[in-house]
């Protein structure tokens, strides 16, 4: 394992410290417990948005703290959801008196820790609502799973709910918008290589040069199945078709297409995937009205990508287009 780190047990602290120094105009970094909040503190009268989860998915979530998106982010240890004692103060820091929305990716650990934190915040008199993001179509939402995972669709939820909060929606409305985004967004991912968690020291799985993992999550876990290496166009079909089938999109739908890199994929390759995914969407009659291509929800240095499609309506499009000023997303 070769990484630009000093000590596996200090990597999150040092990285977040560096992040805070580089973006002091946007964020304030709190330590012990560690969380990141908007510079200048909570916006009075605005619904606060808090997200968080294991580290290793950067720029998610701290990279999305700022105007038009999150008010606070809580980075856990690598791939490990943060603890309630960090989420609770982040929730208080995000509270401008209008309540706080927790945006939680659907993993047992994240759900449980945010749940407890919400109770703690509630005990302090802060109204908390939660939205659970579960956009990963690789996982069946059934009795036989812990439900679908939350993956790259989280960016859309955070951006659009953030815009709704920024325009002054109340907590119930912001939560409803977030739920609407979640209900209309689907993702699926592929890994060409595994990643190595610093404290584990060995790759999360082993792939030969002729194999890839389809249906991976964002924690270096293996996917649903291992298949022979294929062309970018073939792989893009394997990702895009299940997403579109599940979403039931097509016809005259306006969609947002997000091709997300897992951290170790050249940007040039993401655009090759984007090109094919767009062809497939258009082939089904959908119109790609908005696009995002890049590393937004990563899995350390994993090579691979995910395809996310969000069905838009006029309001969601307007909220997506609304100004955002964060370290990783800005317009």
């Amino acid at each position, binding site marked *: 394992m070769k990484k630009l780190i000093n000590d596996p047990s200090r990597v999150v602290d040092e990285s977040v410290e560096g992040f805070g120094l580089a973006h002091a105009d946007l964020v304030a970094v709190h330590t012990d417990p560690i969380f990141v909040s908007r510079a200048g503190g909570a916006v009075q009268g605005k619904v606060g948005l808090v997200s968080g989860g294991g580290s290793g998915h950067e720029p998610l979530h701290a990279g999305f703290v700022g105007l038009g998106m999150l008010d606070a982010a809580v980075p856990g*240890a690598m791939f490990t959801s943060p603890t309630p004692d960090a989420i609770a103060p982040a929730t208080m820091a995000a509270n401008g008196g209008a309540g706080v929305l927790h945006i939680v990716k659907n993993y047992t650990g994240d759900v*449980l820790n945010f749940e407890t934190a919400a109770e703690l915040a509630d005990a302090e008199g802060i109204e908390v609502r939660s939205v659970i993001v579960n956009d990963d179509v690789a996982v069946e939402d059934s009795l036989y799973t*812990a439900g679908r995972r939350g993956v790259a669709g989280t960016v859309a939820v955070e951006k659009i709910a953030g815009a709704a909060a920024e325009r002054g929606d109340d907590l119930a409305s912001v939560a409803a918008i977030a739920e609407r985004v979640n209900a209309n967004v689907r993702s699926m991912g592929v890994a060409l290589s595994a990643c190595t968690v610093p404290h*584990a020291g*060995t790759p999360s799985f082993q792939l030969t040069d002729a194999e890839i993992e389809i249906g991976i*999550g964002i*924690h*270096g*876990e293996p996917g649903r199945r291992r298949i022979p290496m294929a062309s970018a166009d073939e792989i893009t079909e394997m990702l895009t078709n299940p997403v579109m089938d599940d979403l039931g999109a097509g016809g005259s739908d306006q969609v947002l297409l997000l091709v997300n890199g897992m951290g170790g994929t050249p940007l040039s390759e993401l655009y090759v995937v984007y090109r094919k995914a767009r062809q497939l969407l258009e082939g089904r009659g959908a119109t790609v009205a908005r696009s995002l291509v890049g590393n937004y929800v990563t899995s350390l240095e994993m090579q691979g990508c995910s395809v996310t499609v969000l069905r838009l309506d006029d309001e969601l499009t307007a909220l997506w287009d609304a100004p955002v000023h964060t370290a990783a997303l800005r317009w």
Partner: protein
Amino acid sequence: MTLDVAWTVDWVRRTAQVVLENRDYLVELDRQIGDGDHGENLKRGFTAVIAKLDGATEPPGQPADVLKTVATTLMSTVGGAAGPLYGTAYLRAAKVTAVDVLDGPGVLAMLEAGLEGIVARGKAQPGEKTMVDAWTPAVNAAQQAVADGASAEQVLAAAATAAEEGAVATDPLVATKGRASYLGERSAGHRDPGAASSAMVIRAAADAAAAADGAA
């Protein structure tokens, strides 16, 4: 033989030791079907627990005091799924151990409370390839032992053995809860890390009891 507050402290210290010794093993189990952090998570948690115990200004009065410290420390340091689950288990166990000494039924009540806590938070049934599959047989064995009139130490020994067997029995299971469930059929053939660590926790309790007995 007395399962008192000293036993409780000894149990926790033994747990910390076995978790640290098995950190890599638990990481490796979790790497196979999860995200490779379970050993690291518990190491972080129990290291903090020991620091808490060492740094305490006044000694704990009852088992409940120790278990409550463990509960809150794990909750605030472990994270992931294991943090809230273990945290709740210890918290519930603390609720029924506000006594000076635990007898056989007292130990059983403690184990039952722990399992209830895990199920209350995680909603897993037996057979879903989680830590519940170590705790459930442990509680069953403890019930049987109490029914047979066993001592507290014997109750824990029976529970530990059953927990270990339960952990081994997760090997062929297909996970339907937790992170391993995302793997579907591919989760079969691997031991559940949380079940493995749970067996270690309960074995540490039995070992501490045996040591207390030897010392007594």
